[in-house]
């Protein structure tokens, strides 16, 4: 086979797969951004704060419930509690912020989401505490070896990463079905395309916004449970959203498939770059690779891979 050492292929596959799996996590956070941007034209700076609050609500409720009931009951109840918290946030955001700012410029709305993010970070830590909380949702954490028949010794995978990928895939599938097959999904797509037209057929904007922020909140719970399982629930989850920025720039702000593909590309790209280019440039590529990609995309194709061309009206 062209004289390439099979262990090198196996190593490449290992790096690629682990990159793709961490890309899934980026995609999950990026998805929240895209949902809100599509439906309300708001670039939601508070997405990271929502991940933090979701994680805090989940971990604290879970810890408290687990003390008095079996695991299998505590977990769903904790998820329901976190869901209720995120729904409450969506309601408050729509009622007290978005509704007041109808027809304001994108910049005004963006500034408002910065405000929302400070409020969420502050309130979230005030209510749920500001320490690092360990989150154990019972997902397996050990490693396994896959494709042993193909490669000698197989490739090393982490089970937690695999489960994350499964969870993300289920979530995305559910979202796609919701968008394509239900009345609310159709309404969301309509609002994303044209506010006035959507209103004229009787779609109430405010309810749609509430639903979108709720869905973004639920996506934040998924992101928080996976990130939280890996690194613990802590303030730094807020910065996870910074990794989602290059992902949506690459994938396109308005595209759900773009968020997924962008996440996978960035995840795989930064791992491969780190391993194969790292040694020759002194390492640390993983830290800035995504941002360089985003910069190049902005210069070459500002709408991203899948996004709609955004024409600024003057």
């Amino acid at each position: 086979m062209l004289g390439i050492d099979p262990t090198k292929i196996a190593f490449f596959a290992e790096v690629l797969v682990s990159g793709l799996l961490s890309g899934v996590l980026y995609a999950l956070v990026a998805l929240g951004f895209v949902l809100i941007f599509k439906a309300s034209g708001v670039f939601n700076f508070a997405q990271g704060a929502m991940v933090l609050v979701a994680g805090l609500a989940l971990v604290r409720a879970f810890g408290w419930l687990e003390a008095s009931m079996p695991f299998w009951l505590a977990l769903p109840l904790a998820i329901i509690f976190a869901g209720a918290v995120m729904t409450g946030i969506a309601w408050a955001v729509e009622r007290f912020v978005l509704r007041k700012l109808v027809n304001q410029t994108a910049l005004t709305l963006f500034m408002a989401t910065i405000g929302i993010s400070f409020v969420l970070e502050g309130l979230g830590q005030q209510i749920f505490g500001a320490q690092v909380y360990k989150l154990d949702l019972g997902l397996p954490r050990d490693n396994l070896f896959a494709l042993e028949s193909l490669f000698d010794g197989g490739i090393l995978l982490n089970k937690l990463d695999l489960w994350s990928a499964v969870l993300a895939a289920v979530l995305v599938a559910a979202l796609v079905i919701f968008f394509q097959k239900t009345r609310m999904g159709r309404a969301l797509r309509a609002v994303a395309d044209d506010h006035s037209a959507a209103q004229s057929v009787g779609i109430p904007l405010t309810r749609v916004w509430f639903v979108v922020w709720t869905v973004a909140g639920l996506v934040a719970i998924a992101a928080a449970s996976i990130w939280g399982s890996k690194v613990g629930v802590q303030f730094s989850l807020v910065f996870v959203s910074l990794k989602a920025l290059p992902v949506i720039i690459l994938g396109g702000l308005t595209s759900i498939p773009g968020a997924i593909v962008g996440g996978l590309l960035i995840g795989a790209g930064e791992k491969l770059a780190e391993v194969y280019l790292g040694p020759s440039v002194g390492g640390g590529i993983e830290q800035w690779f995504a941002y360089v990609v985003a910069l190049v995309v902005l210069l070459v194709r500002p709408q991203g891979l899948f996004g709609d061309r955004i024409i600024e009206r003057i």
Partner: protein
Amino acid sequence: MTVMSAPMTFAVPSLCSPHAVSSGTPTDHAGAAACCLLEIDRVSLRFGGIKALNDVSFDIRSGEIRAIIGPNGAGKTSMLNCINGFYRPSSGHIVFEGVRRTHTRPSIAARGGIARTFQNVALFKGMTVLDNIMTGRALKIRSGILKQLIRFGPALSEEIEHRRKVEEIIEFLEIQAIRKTPVGKLPYGLQKRVELGRALAMEPRLLLLDEPMAGMNLEEKEDMSRFIVEVNRTYRTTITLIEHDIGVVMNLSDRIVVLDHGCKIADGTPAEIKSNQQVIEAYLGVGG
């Protein structure tokens, strides 16, 4: 014709001529209530210093085609926006089917049976023709989200029923060939037709059309005129039509209201409007 021949029209723009003729529409409110689907009662609308609408009153009778005409910036679109709740009048009332309101909301208007199209085509660009028209059924879908997902029993037959209705509209508008085409790819004339289709899917009682023929060639205008008349005849839908092509307006409409600088300057049958001195002046740019 001298400017002095119409002394009232030159008053400051914020004041309307008391001569605003309303032939054929007696201001007999008790009698009007029974016949009228919609009544505009002294509606004004201000944007900062601009009076987009100034004390405008007229009515729309069930089953008629009612045109609103006037020069650019006269306030025609603003009037439609007040009727379907995009704008909130600064004063005055709008009575729809006997319900008197100072303002409404788009979702309430839509629920009440008011559908509209837009001066600049406003379609859902990412969706196909079929899906666009299907959104017109948004308010009519009854079954819950779970039932819609599994498409079981009543939800399935409901979906089929909506599909049937939408297909009927597609056939009526002669756009079968482009059912699955994303609307962004269609030429302008066809987009306007799809927009009409979406409004028709709402099975409206009152259909508001804002310049449905703008930018169309002669053949397309003839098609659109035919659709408008047929909708009015077959479904008995009341239609309010804004249009700049005077020929089309005179042909289609039962009655015409003329706006200029936010004021109503005339109201009557096409024949009456054609011979109205103030209308002629407004269109020639005299006295305004």
